[in-house]
């Protein structure tokens, strides 16, 4: 377990920095409170404790966040609307659906682009332009539009995720599918291999490193998309809604808890893709580094 020690070290460093930062960032408000309560000459240790125990801190202390996460997950029924596990699941399901759709779409588009010069020239600029359209502007249109035809729930949100996550996959896969060396392509030409055969036996395996890098980015962005899409449909719940309503109610601790769950989800998802990458590499006989 030579991985545990480094993680713990870095984690410890972060926690320490965090506590210190919490003192600094919450000090201002704490001073106001103390002045108001006519408290003077509070010893530093007490003051630090105070800054770590505010109701609406600028930066909640780690134990506050952990406590909130605990209260909102383990201490609650999983089906409760207050449960972060429940909201996490809502976000996760549209993230995963969106990621799968987005990866599929991205790969499909990349295949078309690599094989057809006309689509390279006509599609690519529009794919790029599509990404420059602010999602927050179109998310409501998608949600409202699909809602009008009776499609609600996970699907519209997954579509937003897909919309965001297909892009890294297209960009990466276009590059990846074009990365075989000339001589490797020439070999296929000498066999008069069909484009399809060249694709499966050469381009696809050659694109694996790019595919996995793209998928890691894609799944992270997919999660962002899921969260953003929830803004346009507060009714459905999800981590994004928790973040938002947390901020409406000034519940910084709630925001941070939701943020943590979202980040943890992302980390786990990215790591899952990483494991898949390792497994595929092994199957492809990759040379150990």
């Amino acid at each position, binding site marked *: 377990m030579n991985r545990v020690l480094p993680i713990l070290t870095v984690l410890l460093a972060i926690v320490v920095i965090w506590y210190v930062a919490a003192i600094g960032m919450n000090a201002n408000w704490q001073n106001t409170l103390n002045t108001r309560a006519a408290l003077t000459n509070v010893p530093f240790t007490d003051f630090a404790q105070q800054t770590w125990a505010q109701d609406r801190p600028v930066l909640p202390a780690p134990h506050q966040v952990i406590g909130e996460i605990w209260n909102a997950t383990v201490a609650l029924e999983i089906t409760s609307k207050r449960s972060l596990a429940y909201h996490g699941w809502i976000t996760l399901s549209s993230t995963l659906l969106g990621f799968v759709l987005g990866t599929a779409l991205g790969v499909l588009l990349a295949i078309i682009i690599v094989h057809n010069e006309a689509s390279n020239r006509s599609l690519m600029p529009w794919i790029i332009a599509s990404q420059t359209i602010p999602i927050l502007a179109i998310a409501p249109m998608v949600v409202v539009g699909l809602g009008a035809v009776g499609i609600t729930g996970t699907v519209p949100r997954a579509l937003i995720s897909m919309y965001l996550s297909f892009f890294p996959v297209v960009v990466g896969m276009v590059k990846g599918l074009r990365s075989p*060396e000339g*001589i490797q392509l020439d*070999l296929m030409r*000498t066999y*008069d291999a069909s484009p399809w055969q060249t694709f499966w*036996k050469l381009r696809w395996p050659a694109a*694996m490193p790019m595919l996995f890098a793209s998928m890691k980015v894609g799944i992270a962005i997919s999660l962002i998309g899921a969260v953003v899409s929830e803004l346009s449909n507060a009714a459905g719940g999800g981590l994004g809604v928790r973040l938002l309503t947390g901020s409406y109610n000034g519940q910084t601790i709630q925001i941070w808890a939701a943020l943590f769950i979202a980040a943890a989800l992302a980390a786990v998802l990215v790591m899952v893709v990483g494991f898949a990458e390792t497994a595929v590499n092994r199957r492809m*006989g*990759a040379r150990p580094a």
Partner: protein
Amino acid sequence: MIDLTAVVSAQNLGLTFKTNDGDVVALSDVNLTIDKGEFVSFIGPSGCGKTTFLRTIADLEQPTSGTLTINGQSPENARKDRAYGYVFQAPALYPWRTIEKNIALPLEIMGHSKSQQAERVKRTMDLVNLSGFEKKYPWQLSGGMQQRASIARALAFDADLLLMDEPFGALDEIVRDHLNSELLKLWDRTKKTICFVTHSIPEAVFLSTKIVVMSPRPGRVTDIIESNLPRERPLDIRETPEFLAIAARVRDGLRAGHSYDEDHI
């Protein structure tokens, strides 16, 4: 004159590469006819256009002047007919495939059955003496073994025309002799046409019915030597005067193409 019965017929063939710092004339005014069943060796200084010529035959480069026909058709159509097998100068094995899978690649593409694939892979791996390395990946093989794997890959399917670019360059004398004999046997048995790039004069003379000597800058054919050696060639033919005479002529042609004599670097 284009000869439509010839396997390869080149007329005033020229090929110029455009590069960042000027043109490189890789082939200029090449005229050559190769008939069915011939064994033609190409020999010439490094960079004289041997590989380029083979690639042009294989429709991997487009000539910039002149005409070239393969089996009476365009190189493109010949390629689409899978008229040839090509052994590249570098092994070009796919790193994610085991050796046997690499050798099976053309068979998969040409739609051979699994059992046929297995049978041919085994046979050609035996031929190049690679048995036992079926499940290894390319980076686990030595340089010479990789080259042999790539030869096996080209022999696995039965093309009538073999284009071989220095196939035995990384092999020791003994294996080389062995493979030379095997190749001659194969050629004799199957009546294939073979275009063979080599740097070894004895090898060229031993194998060929015709030796094409090339010279660089611009790449052109300087001599075409028809060999009158018998088709049946034991290894010790290499000590005969006929053999040595041809070898001497090739060496002269080769030397003429070099610049050392003139400016002596």
